[in-house]
């Protein structure tokens, strides 16, 4: 049977339980804005009943645990979604950064500069002996090359930037994986591996940050450790308390760009081609696939244009400073161009009279834009532009008309790398490239927006499950305040009863 003393214990357990529950509420309120914090609640359990002569008497209340409101499946969905979102955003930003290089407003731009060049040739055809018009052609050609080079350098600059990002992201990833591994150890060493709610939340926050940086897959083992692998499964980043370091080192096969490996003990795994998500995956994709495709197309267009113009200019006749008729003058020069190597084409290493293949098949093309200049001899003597088809006929404009007509000629660019010209006019090929850039920009913007919507929706659900609701906390605070006050009143009552009993006993003894 319960006595006054045990009643005091019951009152005390109520005080303690309310106090602990209020402490949990305070913790919740303090973390109302903490990312990935899951609202906690004290789990109250009535004390074990005691048997007095077959009658079971309760012994009060205890806080048996502090539980977090958490949906692990939803958390992992958010992690995956963040990975997709950051990857799409990084890709969009990378493409968006090069779009100015392809924008053509009708006064500047690739197509405009090409058009200006051919227009200057067309004008020269009206008066092929004019030194002023010849100089105008030289100026337009230089302007066109500058436009090509500016566009090219914008793209290659962005490739360099993406590569630098790869180098700077790897240490960040390593820091996060180390922290997650440390938290894994801390969590799994608890008697109840699910008990350390704050460490679990903190680990989730770090995992979300990691997912933004690199595509990962997350699973949980029986000790509540996070096992984290790359999304391709090519390498493990975290296993229990072990974090496996990523290393970024310049790789000759990648043009001295960073290659990425994961070091597992004594061995290391090259994962450069196996990373497809997060910022790192996006930067690698930008660096190795998307942006090089643009620079490669620029090389192909510029190389084909130079080749076609050189071919005609070398076949025609211009006039030197002494008034002599001169043939065989390449219009453009640069690395990989040898005027004497092939009478028909201005390039060395080209297949027999075939149009040059693009960068993929002919390394000679790669980066050719940077070395291109208008032949210094033509810059010095613009009348070397071969207007005439026959010698000593300075008024003959047939060759310069052929040059001008290249603008609308078909088959001037080899677009499918088979060594044969198969394109529409240059303007169509350039428009195709511009359209590619625009379409990909739009595509990744759309993906990023959709991923952001998905992430927000998932985070809203996550917040709905785990977020701290201040109204709820206030209500619970009132509830436990009242319980605390009631327990205190109960103890006070027991105290008075005890006092009354003691007074009665003292009086009886005195009487």
């Amino acid at each position, binding site marked *: 049977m319960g006595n006054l003393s045990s009643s005091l214990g019951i009152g005390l357990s109520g005080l303690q339980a309310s106090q602990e529950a209020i402490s949990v509420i305070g913790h919740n309120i303090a973390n*109302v804005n903490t990312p990935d914090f899951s*609202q906690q609640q004290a789990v109250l359990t009535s004390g074990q009943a005691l048997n007095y002569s077959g009658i079971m008497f309760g012994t009060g209340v205890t806080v048996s645990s502090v539980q977090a409101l958490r949906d692990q499946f939803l958390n992992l969905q958010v992690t995956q979604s963040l990975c997709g979102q950051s990857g799409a955003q990084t890709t969009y930003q990378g493409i*968006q950064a090069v*779009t100015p290089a*392809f924008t*053509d407003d009708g006064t500047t731009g690739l*197509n*405009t500069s090409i*058009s200006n060049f*051919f*227009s200057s040739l*067309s*004008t020269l*055809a*009206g*008066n092929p*002996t*004019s030194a002023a018009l010849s100089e105008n052609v030289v100026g337009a050609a230089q302007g066109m090359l500058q436009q090509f080079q500016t566009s090219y350098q914008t793209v290659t600059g962005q490739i360099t930037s993406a590569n630098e990002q790869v180098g700077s992201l790897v240490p960040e990833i390593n820091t996060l994986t180390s922290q997650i591994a440390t938290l894994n150890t801390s969590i799994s060493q608890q008697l109840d591996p699910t008990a350390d709610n704050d460490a679990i939340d903190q680990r989730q926050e770090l995992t979300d940050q990691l997912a933004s940086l690199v595509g990962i897959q997350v699973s949980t083992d029986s000790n509540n450790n996070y096992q984290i692998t790359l999304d391709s499964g090519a390498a493990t980043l975290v296993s229990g308390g072990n974090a496996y370091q990523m290393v970024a080192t310049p790789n000759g096969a990648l043009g001295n760009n960073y290659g990425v490996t994961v070091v597992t003990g004594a061995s290391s795994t090259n994962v450069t081609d196996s990373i497809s998500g997060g910022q790192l995956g996006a930067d690698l994709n930008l660096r190795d696939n998307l942006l090089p495709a643009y620079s490669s197309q620029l090389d192909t267009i510029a190389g084909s244009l130079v080749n076609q113009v050189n071919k005609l200019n070398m076949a025609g006749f211009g006039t030197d400073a002494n*008034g002599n008729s001169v043939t065989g003058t390449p219009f453009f020069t640069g690395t990989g161009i040898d005027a004497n190597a092939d009478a028909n084409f201005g390039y060395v290493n080209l297949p027999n009279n075939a149009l040059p293949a693009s960068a993929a098949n002919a390394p000679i093309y790669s980066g050719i834009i940077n070395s291109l200049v208008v032949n210094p001899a033509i810059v010095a003597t613009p009348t070397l532009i071969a207007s*005439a088809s*026959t010698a*000593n*006929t*300075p*008024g*003959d*404009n*047939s060759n310069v*008309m052929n040059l*001008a007509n290249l*603008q*609308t000629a078909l088959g001037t660019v080899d677009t499918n790398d088979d060594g044969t010209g198969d394109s529409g*006019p240059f*303007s169509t090929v350039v*428009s*195709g490239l*511009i*359209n590619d850039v*625009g*379409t*990909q*920009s*739009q595509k990744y*913007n759309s993906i990023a927006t959709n991923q*952001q919507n998905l992430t*927000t929706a998932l*985070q*809203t659900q996550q*917040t*709905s499950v785990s*977020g*701290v*609701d*201040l*109204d*709820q906390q*206030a*209500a619970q*605070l*009132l509830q436990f305040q009242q319980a605390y006050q009631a327990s205190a009143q109960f103890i006070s009552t027991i105290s008075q009863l005890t006092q009354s009993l003691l007074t009665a006993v003292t009086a009886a003894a005195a009487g």
Partner: protein
Amino acid sequence: MTMRVPNLMNNNASLLDLQRLKQQYAETVQELSTGQANPNLGDNPAAEAQVEGYQASINVNAEFVAQANTANSQLQASSTALTSMGTDITQLLQLGQEGLAADTTPTTQAGISSQVSALRQDLIALGNTQVQGNYIFAGTKTTTVPFVDNQATTPPSTTYNGNSGITSLTLSPSVNVATNIPGDTLFYGGTGLQGSSSDVLAQAAAMAQALTTNNTAAIQTAYNNLQTISSRINVSVADLGEREDGVTALQDGLSAYSQNLTTQQSSIASVNYANAITQLNEEGVAQQATLSTIAKSGQKTLFDYIA
């Protein structure tokens, strides 16, 4: 089922909405300030490709228009020279008639001969007409003086230093227009016909010589040949005129086409101001409403009512 709505939830969703609205607003402002419907490459790639296509066509067409202008100016220069040439030949024929008249005295014939010689010189000068430093009747050897007079021979003769090259300009993908008449064709009647009956300069020299010697038969022969030549020149004048008319008609067509292309391009590339301004107003209102909502939501919690 009632959904829990913790404090962060509304804030995050509302902030994302606000962010989107601000982005849309900024895009509309950019459209209005640039006047372009799609100021960024990724806004509407399909439209951008169309605009690029139109721009390429406009540029090529502008070149054709410029070529047509050049062709016309060159044809006009030749036409002017040919008209003067025709006038000279007409005067030669008149002088020939005067020389053939029965009452002509030797003194008069000497005077007529001098006039014929002067007209011949004038014709040679016309043959050496220069436009922008180029000899327009030298074929494609436009920097070489085409006709050189040789007074040492009797009668005086000329040497043609040009060639029979034709220059032409492309005025459309399917139209090439010859913009010159080679001097030998015009003055000699063809390549290798120098000194023949179709050589206007030789016939003028022969007439002057015949007038000096009062050789009526020779005057008559030169006269007859000059009449034939006159007809040939008239045909050339008519030919040039037809070419000019053709080029002018083409110019008109090209200009109209340019206008059409520009209109088509503008309909895609240019912003619709009325729509954009309406949209800007709507986005402004939506932005204000969102701001107001964010400011009001979550202002009070139960804590505010706990004494």
